[in-house]
């Protein structure tokens, strides 16, 4: 017996669906071919994630935003997620971003070449939760988040995005 889960994107429009994010995604695509673009790809990637976060907030700051009981994304959680994105180095800005059904922000890194290198980080205000898989190795933890991204989060991101096996 097979079951389908999350067969509908019960989150709002995925990052990239909104007009602003679409525009930025288009510019990112063009940069892949036009290396002489004035703004760097890293700069646009940060803009892309931030605009996606703003769009997600506008769509998910209500209780039951999905029509199926999801919790609202609070201003505090959104602000803390913005802080974290601002503090990430450019080379780590390769995450997908989404809202969890309990109203927290999730950032997901997955290595395109080696999909079993995967990190899911959830920003719940002043607390971070993560689970990371690097091939057969698994790491997970709950950390408090002040103003500095914890070292072990940076290490996990580095391990996931590293192009090597």
């Amino acid at each position, binding site marked *: 017996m097979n079951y389908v889960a*999350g*067969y509908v994107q*019960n989150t709002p429009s995925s990052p990239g669906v909104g007009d602003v994010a679409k525009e930025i995604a288009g510019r990112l695509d063009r940069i892949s071919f036009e290396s002489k673009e004035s703004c760097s790809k890293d700069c646009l990637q940060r803009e892309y994630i931030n605009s996606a976060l703003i769009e997600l907030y506008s769509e998910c700051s209500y209780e039951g*935003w999905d029509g199926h009981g999801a919790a609202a994304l609070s201003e505090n959680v959104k602000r803390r997620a913005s802080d974290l994105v601002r503090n990430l180095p450019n080379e780590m800005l390769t995450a997908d971003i989404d809202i969890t059904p309990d109203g927290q922000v999730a950032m997901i890194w997955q290595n395109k070449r080696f999909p079993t290198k995967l990190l899911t980080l*959830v920003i719940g205000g002043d607390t971070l939760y993560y689970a990371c898989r690097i091939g057969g190795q*698994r790491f997970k933890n709950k950390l408090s988040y002040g103003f500095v991204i914890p070292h072990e989060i940076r290490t996990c991101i580095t391990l996931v995005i590293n192009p090597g096996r």
Partner: protein
Amino acid sequence: MKVTQLLPIKIENRLETSVYGIAGCKMSDIRAMCQDWIDEAAVKSIAAKQNPRNCYGYAKIGRETLNTTNLELDIDNNPLGHANIIGWPLEYEDRLEIVNELKLLAAKFSPRVTPNLET
């Protein structure tokens, strides 16, 4: 597939992820399920009505896959075919570890399918 789609929500003090059984279903049946889900959301929530969803795909998870994660299936058939994945651990990071595994295992079972539903 996004891992956030698999994370459970607390309903009446129980963590559950809503799923549907699709054994024997045709693609058209699955599309109809997706549309029903979207329509139901629009009825229940003004926010969902104002920001209508599209269905971009679904993840197929074998029951045996659930068993490897120590999760259980509670089939309520409300509506027909509906079930909840239950048995989620209390610690959030443990849940994340499980959804990471499900994401990887589900991908093996099912390539991404795009019914391209419009609301």
